């Protein structure tokens, strides 16, 4: 009995210690999340207190029938696929370079981390400056190289603008992917590559037959992690294009923001946010499964 009481006391003591953190988590995560879910069933059109009509799943139904949402979903999927693929390819090249026995490897690694260290807002503003049709360096450079004879409005056409936002995103996030992959590369014993070389395999064959298969768990994690992040893209769009031109760079999170805060359709916005959460949850479940698999793979 005394031992049991002692353990019970310890448990309550642990609970008391956990309480401050729990209050914070509850305040900034759980309460807003539950509240958003609650609001998503009402036609809330103001941030102020009041009695708003209950609409059941009406907001969710409206989201599915809104062509703007489908258009934004298309942009989001394109953004996610292209940016993640580009980040993986460039990240792999950078990781291989950083893993090579170069003399100034530390300097290379320091340089590569810089884009990732930049806040997204700064990155967006910087690319806006580069792409500015009148004062941007890209137009100046291409004109001086005689590659264009008229200044181009880079962010003035919807599809081009979407791709250039992807370029800005890739420039920033490739560093992160590269460091993930570098960590993966460093776990591969060099003897394997040496053995392949002794067997007559060239560097390309060694990469595809030895390095790449061993990197698969890392690649899988990076892919899912970046996919989730890319799916939630918001800030770079806000800074670079504001969703334009012709709504051509509107993504689902950006549209959610517009609906909720600009249009003050909080119920609709909350429903959209919850649908995004479901997609992200699905992706994160895959991510956690892959993580577990790679951990198990590492243990065996």
């Amino acid at each position: 009995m005394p031992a049991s009481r002692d353990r019970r006391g310890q448990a309550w003591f642990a609970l008391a210690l956990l309480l401050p953190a729990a209050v914070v988590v509850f305040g900034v995560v759980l309460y807003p999340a539950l509240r958003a879910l609650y609001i998503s069933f009402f036609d809330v059109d103001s941030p102020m207190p009041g009695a708003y009509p209950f609409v059941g799943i009406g907001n969710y139904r409206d989201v599915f029938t809104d062509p703007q949402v489908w258009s934004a979903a298309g942009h989001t999927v394109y953004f996610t696929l292209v940016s993640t693929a580009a980040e993986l390819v460039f990240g792999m090249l950078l990781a291989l370079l950083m893993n090579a026995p170069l003399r100034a490897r530390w300097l290379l690694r320091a340089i590569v981390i810089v884009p990732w260290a930049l806040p997204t807002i700064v990155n967006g503003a910087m690319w806006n400056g580069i792409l500015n049709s009148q004062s941007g360096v890209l137009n100046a450079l291409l004109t001086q190289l005689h590659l264009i004879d008229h200044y181009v409005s880079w962010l003035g056409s919807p599809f081009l603008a979407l791709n250039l936002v992807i370029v800005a995103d890739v420039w920033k996030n490739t560093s992160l992917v590269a460091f993930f992959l570098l960590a993966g590369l460093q776990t591969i014993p060099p003897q394997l590559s040496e053995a392949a070389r002794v067997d007559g395999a060239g560097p390309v064959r060694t990469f595809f037959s030895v390095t790449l298969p061993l990197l698969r768990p890392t690649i899988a994690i990076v892919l899912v992690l970046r996919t989730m992040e890319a799916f939630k893209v918001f800030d770079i769009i806000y800074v670079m294009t504001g969703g334009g031109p012709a709504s051509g760079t509107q993504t689902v999170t950006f549209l959610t923001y517009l609906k909720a805060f600009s249009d003050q359709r909080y119920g609709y916005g909350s429903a959209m946010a919850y649908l995004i959460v479901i997609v992200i949850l699905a992706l994160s479940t895959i991510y956690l499964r892959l993580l577990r698999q790679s951990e198990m793979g590492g243990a065996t």
Partner: protein
Amino acid sequence: MSVPNEPSRRGFLGLSAAAGATLLLGSACGGGGGGSAGNGTGKIRALFMKQAGYSESDIRKMTAAFHQANPKISVDVELVAYEALHDKIVAAAPAHTYDVVLIDVIWPAEFGSKRIVTDVTSKVSGGIKSGMLPGALATAEYRGHYYGLPWILDTKYLYYNKAHLKKAGVDEGSLDTWDGVVAAAKKIKAKGIVDAPLAWSWKQVEALICDYTQLLGAYGGTFLTPDGKSAAFQTGGGLEALKFMRGTLDDGLTNKGSITWIEDDVLKTFSQGQASFMLNWTYGFAGANDPKASKVAGDVGVRRTPAGPGGKRPGVNGSMALCVSGGSQNQAAAWTYITYLTGASVQDRYATSSLPCWQASYDDPQVTKANPDVVPVAKEQLADLIARPQVPRYNEMSQVLQSQLQRCLAQGEDPAAALNAAADQAKRILA
């Protein structure tokens, strides 16, 4: 090995969730509550915009002078870009973050009906009503109620580069009509003075609607049918205005960058001599004539906005008002600050940034001497303004229109098809 009464992780989370749900249901739909007058002293927070109109330095100087005159009130000033202003006011409203907020002429219907700003009708004295320009006073009015006091009285003027006109042999008098402006732009382009002489604020933001409104007015269009229940921009002047915009792009007279520009970008382009014409707010004149920032200082001309085929030439009403926020706990101090900033003496002193809202100011030498070029033009233009639709869901309607206008301008969609699509989407918003 569980111990009886030990709070398991699952139990703990369950308990938290239950507590959350209880609180949630208890709190109904929103925090906050009504404001209160306060004792007229203490600390207040004010939200302004960092774009056009008064500069940040102007606002801080005005506030410093207010502190000297009212030592018992302390004001914290915060500035955001115009594009973030609406959403910041909305997001901060339930938490009563700000006591004073600057609102655009298009928001009183939305903010007033949702009690985000306070109804100050009883405080707007006869002196204010008779002393202010009628167009200015309407800035914060919705359905006979006043929700603030006008502070920035503005519309878009036509600015032009006199040196470019001279080189091209264009008479300034020909700029009284849009046809004349287009003819002048063609001459300037043909002579190779500027590749694309027209610069506009056609980014997918409210600025695009301001430019479009001014052109819609010139072509004799209206946004809504007389009963206010349906869109009317898809026919007549509204359609002609969009055709005009698209035509200048197709002819290479409008700089294609315009599709990504707001007023500050247009001013920079004009100030670098890369455009011969721009539509811009009052601050554009001082900005383009600032030798530190402009290559065309001294060559800047300003006129009323050009007329369309019917001779109409209204300027878009781009005024803004200072309001007491609905949840302010110190409304008396907030109102003291607002009446100080909107007073004639302060407005007259900063007339180069934004023209005063007071009728008498336009005969005050302090104002007329500070803006000898702008004041005579403004006197005529401010008497002829066109408003964007005063509807509670204005932002939604504006976004629909912005998107469709850009589909025409940036994607080559037929003007009638784009506006019909916008009118179709507007049905739900106006219903």
